[in-house]
């Protein structure tokens, strides 16, 4: 059980965390015909927008209530109302997801109350489903914002089940914030292969997977429809991915009676098996042969790949669920997690990280610890690139954001196939670092007295 270390420093250097409102916005982007609206100063939206555009390489319909000096003093209700009206008129969304920011939350306004009054007052808004999540930047990270937004969506949009018997073999999937479009595609394909019908909430594989529509669409195109959300109560089961999705899953269960299972991660053989076992149970059908072959391919990848993991010193920094999932995967392949840094302490799973210590901190903490523990691989989002350069240690880019590489959302790390791919990706990073040996490496033999780290250093390049 990992010891959780809370650093006592006042200065955050090279932030690891992305803020909660951004996480909420990403969740809202997984709804069809949606516009996320950040309730704050226009900078709150601008920073989130620029980062997400760079990450997703897509135009992103993110809006702002544009709180200014006056609204800061007088309260933001008017701005919220104006924003809702303006964007409904201009963009004709089916759904608006409002996420609050630190700016409005610090004033302690009753935003839910404001919204209620606005909706009562404004018939123009009656065809739009409007959802509110309270996500001040000073509380939590991307995972928290995503989770709160999904919770808010379920709270507002899911209808109580009307018939006693489900109409079809529906399974609800609540993916975590770090699931890519490719991850969701694998999940959907796998669920379908058991004769089940998945409803994914939110479904960024429909909206942020990079497509070229034939015409200009100002809102998201693709994503979960509000109708499908309304009918989530008809499912046989809900599967949530990541501890941060427990809250929405449990709310959905409480609201509809649909039983739910929270899987900590889908990366790794064991987690993939769990998912498949669950689908087998839900569907009462045997696993199809293509899935069996996928598993066999994963076993082979584990066999071929384990040479490049065994004893490898790995430093990971991420949000709690992503960190725990990745650390578990690396450890299961024989790597040593010498550095584990979590963006927040907001999760019970941190204790499960297979490392002596988990530091709640920033990328400077990761860099310092990685340097001190001679890490051979860094694993974090693309802001880790500066540390990677300074330390001369390669970086596996994963999480959010990844803006300096293409195709991140088409990279699957879930399930048998995704785990196989991840093994290859890591092994190839290690293979790319291999070099021919030179006499100088064998330092001990040359200066016999000095104890060197040679054994480790050489064998690391197996």
């Amino acid at each position, binding site marked *: 059980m990992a010891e959780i270390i809370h650093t006592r420093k006042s200065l955050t250097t090279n932030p690891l965390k992305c803020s909660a409102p951004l996480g909420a916005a990403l969740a809202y982007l997984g709804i069809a015909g949606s516009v996320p609206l950040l309730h704050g100063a226009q900078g709150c939206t601008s920073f989130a927008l620029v980062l997400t555009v*760079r990450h997703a390489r897509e135009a992103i319909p993110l809006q702002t209530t544009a709180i200014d000096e006056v609204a800061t003093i007088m309260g933001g209700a008017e701005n919220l109302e104006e924003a809702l009206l303006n964007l409904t008129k201009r963009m004709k969304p089916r759904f608006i997801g409002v996420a609050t920011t630190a700016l409005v939350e610090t004033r302690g306004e009753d935003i839910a109350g404001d919204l209620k009054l606005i909706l009562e007052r404004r018939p123009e808004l009656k065809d739009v489903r409007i959802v509110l999540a309270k996500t001040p*930047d000073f509380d939590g990270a991307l995972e928290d914002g995503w989770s709160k937004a999904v919770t808010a969506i379920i709270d507002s949009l899911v209808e109580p089940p009307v018939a006693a018997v489900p109409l079809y073999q529906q399974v609800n999937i609540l993916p975590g914030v770090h699931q890519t479009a490719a991850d969701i595609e694998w999940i959907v394909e796998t669920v379908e292969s058991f004769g089940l019908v998945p409803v994914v909430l939110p479904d960024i594989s429909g909206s942020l997977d990079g497509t070229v529509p034939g015409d200009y669409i100002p809102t998201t195109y693709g994503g979960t429809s509000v109708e499908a959300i309304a009918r989530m109560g008809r499912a046989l089961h809900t599967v949530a991915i990541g501890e941060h999705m427990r809250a929405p899953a449990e709310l959905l269960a409480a609201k509809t009676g649909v039983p739910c299972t929270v899987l900590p991660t889908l990366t790794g053989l064991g987690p993939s098996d769990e998912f498949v076992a669950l689908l087998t149970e839900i569907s009462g059908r045997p696993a199809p042969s293509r899935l069996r072959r996928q598993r066999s391919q994963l076993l082979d990848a584990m066999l071929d790949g384990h040479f490049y993991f065994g004893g490898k010193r790995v430093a990971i920094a991420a949000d709690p669920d992503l960190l725990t999932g990745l650390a578990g995967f690396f450890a299961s392949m024989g790597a040593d997690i010498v550095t584990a840094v979590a963006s927040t302490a907001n999760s019970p799973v941190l204790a499960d990280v297979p490392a002596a210590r988990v530091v709640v901190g920033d990328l400077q903490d990761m860099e310092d610890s990685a340097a001190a523990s001679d890490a051979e691989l860094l694993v974090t989002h693309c802001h880790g690139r500066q540390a990677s350069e300074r330390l001369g240690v390669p970086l596996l880019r994963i999480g959010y954001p990844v803006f300096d590489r293409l195709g991140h959302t088409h990279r699957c790390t879930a399930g048998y196939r995704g785990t196989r791919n991840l093994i290859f990706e890591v092994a190839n990073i290690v293979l790319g670092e291999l070099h021919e040996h030179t006499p100088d490496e064998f330092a001990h033999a040359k200066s016999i007295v000095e104890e060197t780290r040679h054994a480790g250093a050489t064998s690391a390049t197996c």
Partner: protein
Amino acid sequence: MSEALKARIADVFNEPSCDKNQAKDATERKKGCSKPLVPGAAAGGCAFDGAMIALQPLTDVVHLVHGPLACAGNGWDGRHSASSGSRLFRTGFTTDMSEMDIVMGNGEKRLYRAIREAIARHNPPAVFVYATCVPAIIGDDIDAVCKHATEKLGTPCIPINAPGFAGSKNLGNKLGGEALFEHVIGTIEPEVVTGADINVLGEYNLSGEFWQVRPLLDRLGIRVHACITGDAKYRDVASCHRVGLNMMVCSTALINVARKMQEKYGVPYFEGSFYGIGDTSESLRMIARILVRRGVDASLIDRTEALIATEEARAWARIEPYRAALQGKKVLLYTGGVKSWSIVAALQEIGMEIVRTSVRKSTDEDKDRIKVLMGTDAHMVNTIPPREMYAMLKRGDADIMLSGGRSQFTALKAKTPWLDINQERHVAYAGYDGMVTLVAELHRSLTNPVWQELRRPAPWEVTDREAERTALLESAC
């Protein structure tokens, strides 16, 4: 908002060098010139963002953002401003205020400790402290904290009061400039004064592009004392008040600094551009002329003309191979400010046609220049809504769009060539070489066969059309 901040904003709004302001009466002038933001339809960055943009290319100092995470966390490590020395400016620093800090009113304490930690680890020549919305609301006095820290820790701590809600990015630029003028410029006396020293204001050295210009000045014996701010060092900026001339590159951004330096230190300024061959030459001429007027040996004028002649000839020779392919190609220029005319001139130089140029952040003077260049103001537009922009490009009104990264996907989804001319680009466009590069990039983009590929009909478009026809025929029966 603190009274001090209000006063500072009013002061900036009252900028007498702003040509818009000059046209207003006193009451109107007081209201300020930043357009009111429309909730649900606003797009740009906030004042804090603007201040950061203006100051962050000071490469050797700690830029510390006081606020909750989003302000620094969602924005750091994004621009391609290049440094020839320290890379400290690329490090993201923030106090990452927690709920506890806010509830307990611990913001100032946390900030002070953060400053102390930053100095202890990085030993910078200065710490720049940026206020954001939350500490501004709860009344954290960053001026006081900076003053205390400066005294106590012996390192200058510079407060930048530009919380996001105060206004636009543009305002933030100016507030950043105010802070420089108030707390940095003139605090150190320069070690060297050559008489032919200049500062360049509003040049961020994106992708190192100023390194294509600086050597030209070097060759003429003109020393760039400080580039404010691009590849800038704290000491150079702090001692930049003894130069003979300030050149303003990005017209509106730091005009207040230029004007105040003129008032206080008698440094004249002019506005110019290093984009395009003609404008680069014109800027070099202006610099030479003013410096000669200020006492530099008159031979500078001739030497400058000789350099211009050589460089222009060389640039044109290098551009020639691309001309045929670019001639008559239609450009949609979606930028603003100085680029709205300087790039127009540059593109016209090689025979391209400007179908629209946006004048979103342009001054009246900028607009006048465009009118002169294009012979009419019919092509000037303000903001183009994405839907309209998409329609224009889809119709083929332009062969290529030049803009910042944000509108990139509107062009690309319309299957239209696009070139980044704003902050995120990795290509250096300034000076003579930069213009050649821009032309090469335009050529590369416009001649890429990928555009034909992309417009190839999908197999089912053929089939589907046939099916539709069949269905139509059948239903017709």
